[in-house]
């Protein structure tokens, strides 16, 4: 077990300052998200943020570091530990014309506000026609040795709520452009920031104030011809690593990054399957009724005649995210698992 070691502080909690872009203009995912928030706060004074410890402390992951100095405590509002009320307040203020962006300290604590999210936020517009331009954002995902209560992938719960757009970006530019789109969207949006990506992945990120990435559009991150890997979030990076390794062995994998998991961009997925005829659906949400289950069903239903092999799924079992490195590595799909799955599919 090469990685059988606890990475101290890997979860980022109480971490270092957010940092800056490199001189070349590269930004981490964390910086890109902060830029999106900053620019939208500058652009539209109806936008405000609320959440726990987001003010002077700058948030558990330092996303909002420095915001309170610029925008004041009226627009960077520290709340008590009251998730139902954070969501409810976001809803009520949106009903009155504000554009709230609520931070959850971890996406895990979205379940503490579950009722307000699924019962009020998701259903209100359909019932009454009142737009709710609310963004809920929080760090999700595992692989950082943060165990059961700080590693969740809650996207299936909320995608299933029906009235919330659920966004799970994998790259800094997508994160920035999608978060800006979410803040400008008149519908409820959930923006899940994979904490494993925060400080690990950086790239050149556009600086134009109106740089937007459309919600509900997938993106092919690597072209390939033998097998399509349909994925999102941190798994995109695992898939790209696997695809690189496979290329050296003469296999060509296409990597489709969903970016938004609800609504799902079926067209881009189906186009990829038409091209490769083989599908590996890879997700960090649970296998049983997870996002991957829906994607696999869609492919089976709508691209059956293009398939040369059964759709394969790779995702964690429905158990709490375990702590010990050996356990968490066994729990999460790994690069070698992806390579093996692609090889199995190619052999059909």
């Amino acid at each position, binding site marked *: 077990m090469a990685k059988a070691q606890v990475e101290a502080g890997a979860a980022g909690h109480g971490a270092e300052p957010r940092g800056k872009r490199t001189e070349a203009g590269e930004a981490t995912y964390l910086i890109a998200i902060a830029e999106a928030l900053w620019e939208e706060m500058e652009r539209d004074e109806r936008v405000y943020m609320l959440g726990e410890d987001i003010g002077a402390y700058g948030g558990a992951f330092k996303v909002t570091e420095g915001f309170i100095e610029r925008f004041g405590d009226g627009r960077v509002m520290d709340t008590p530990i*009251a998730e139902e009320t954070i969501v*409810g307040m976001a809803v009520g203020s949106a*009903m009155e014309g504000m554009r709230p962006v609520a931070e959850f300290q971890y996406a895990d604590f979205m379940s503490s506000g579950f009722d307000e999210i699924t019962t009020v936020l998701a259903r209100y*517009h*359909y019932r*009454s026609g*009142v737009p709710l331009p609310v963004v809920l954002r929080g760090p999700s995902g595992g692989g950082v040795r943060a165990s059961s209560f700080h590693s969740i992938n809650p996207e299936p719960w909320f995608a299933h709520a029906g009235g919330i757009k659920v966004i799970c970006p994998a790259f800094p530019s997508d994160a920035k452009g999608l978060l800006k789109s979410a803040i400008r969207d008149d519908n409820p949006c959930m923006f899940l920031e994979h904490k494993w990506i925060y400080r690990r992945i950086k790239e050149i990120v556009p600086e134009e104030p109106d740089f937007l990435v459309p919600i509900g559009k997938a993106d092919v991150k690597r072209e390939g011809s033998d097998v399509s890997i349909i994925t999102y979030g941190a798994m995109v990076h695992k898939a790209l690593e696997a695809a690189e390794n496979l290329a050296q062995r003469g296999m060509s994998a296409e990597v489709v990054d969903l970016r938004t998991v609800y609504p799902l961009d079926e067209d881009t997925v189906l186009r990829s399957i038409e091209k490769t005829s083989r599908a590996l659906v890879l997700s960090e949400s649970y296998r049983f009724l997870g996002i991957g289950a829906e994607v696999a069903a869609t492919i089976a239903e709508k691209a059956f005649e293009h398939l040369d092999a059964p759709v394969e799924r790779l995702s964690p079992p429905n158990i709490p995210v375990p702590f010990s490195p050996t356990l968490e590595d066994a729990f999460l799909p790994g690069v070698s698992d992806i390579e093996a799955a692609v090889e199995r599919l190619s052999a059909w």
Partner: protein
Amino acid sequence: MTTELRQTDQGRPLPDDRLKHVLYLLRLCRYFDERMEALYRQGRLPGAIYSGRGQEGTHVGVASALEPDDSLFPTHRDLSAQLTKGLDLNRVMAQYWGRIDGYLRGRDGNSHVGDWFGHRTFAVISHLPIAYPVACGAALAYKRRGDKRVAMAICGDGSTSNGRWHEAINTSSIHRLPVVWVVNNNQYAYSTPNTLEFGVPTIAERAAAYGIPGVRVDGANVLEVYAAAKEAVDRARSDGGPTLIESVSLRWRGHAGHDPAKYMPRELLEDHMANKDPVKNFETWMLAEGIVTAGDVEEIQKRVEGEFEAGFEFAQSSPYPEPGDVTKGLWVEDGYWTSEPGRGGGTEAS
């Protein structure tokens, strides 16, 4: 009754025409409640009914203290407060019958109604008390913008046992939000009495735990309720922060239409119906004060009955929603809620 009334310096708590309107509202809400129950029992009303009978003093009293652009966040039990806020009876009744002219275009039924763009009332959600935190948000918006507006939320006694009741009041206190918290203590939460819902003698005294004023009023006395609500609304409007109002009455009927409420002691109900009837009490006072005559009361009653009949007819003649529209209106961009809905394509639900 007269001696219990809070009087303003002018002698009466409200000008006579407003007092007459209060009497009209009390009569309207009572009549609506009785007739809807009758229709329900005859099998002529689909869905559910949640009677607010016996609590009209609370509902009319608190909602009368609001200005048109103040917002109201009610529950299933509080239709009388929404009617006080001004909702159109025709459209309310169209909602009960699942018709397109209902405020929610058939997407919800019964008292789960609301008219946000018109009368600033939140479309009721079952989960209790889910609108308390939402009221915090509306109040936050008023405060941030310096609007002189107030949010008011209502829930029942049982709802005060739920965590978000406490979350919301605590948060409103921290941020001094312009909100009025009303508890309609009708002594029962479904079958559960106050003694099994909380361990303090009154709900109002819990206000101390949040550092806000708390007041307990007699729900049988609409003017006492109004006076307390007005004071709280004025305080909120002048940046004095939130207030908790507990208005005590009794739920005269079962939790919902199906519930005979056999758990409720007979004597308690009889005492309330005989001595603590908010509608009768106020009417008696209005007559004694000479603000209305017996003839006026009769006229009010006629008006109420006429409006109910008209509402019933309106609801029956309103079309069902177009079934093809069922998935529309989830997202803002499909334009369903900003355009005219399809009418008349629907078939009657069984």
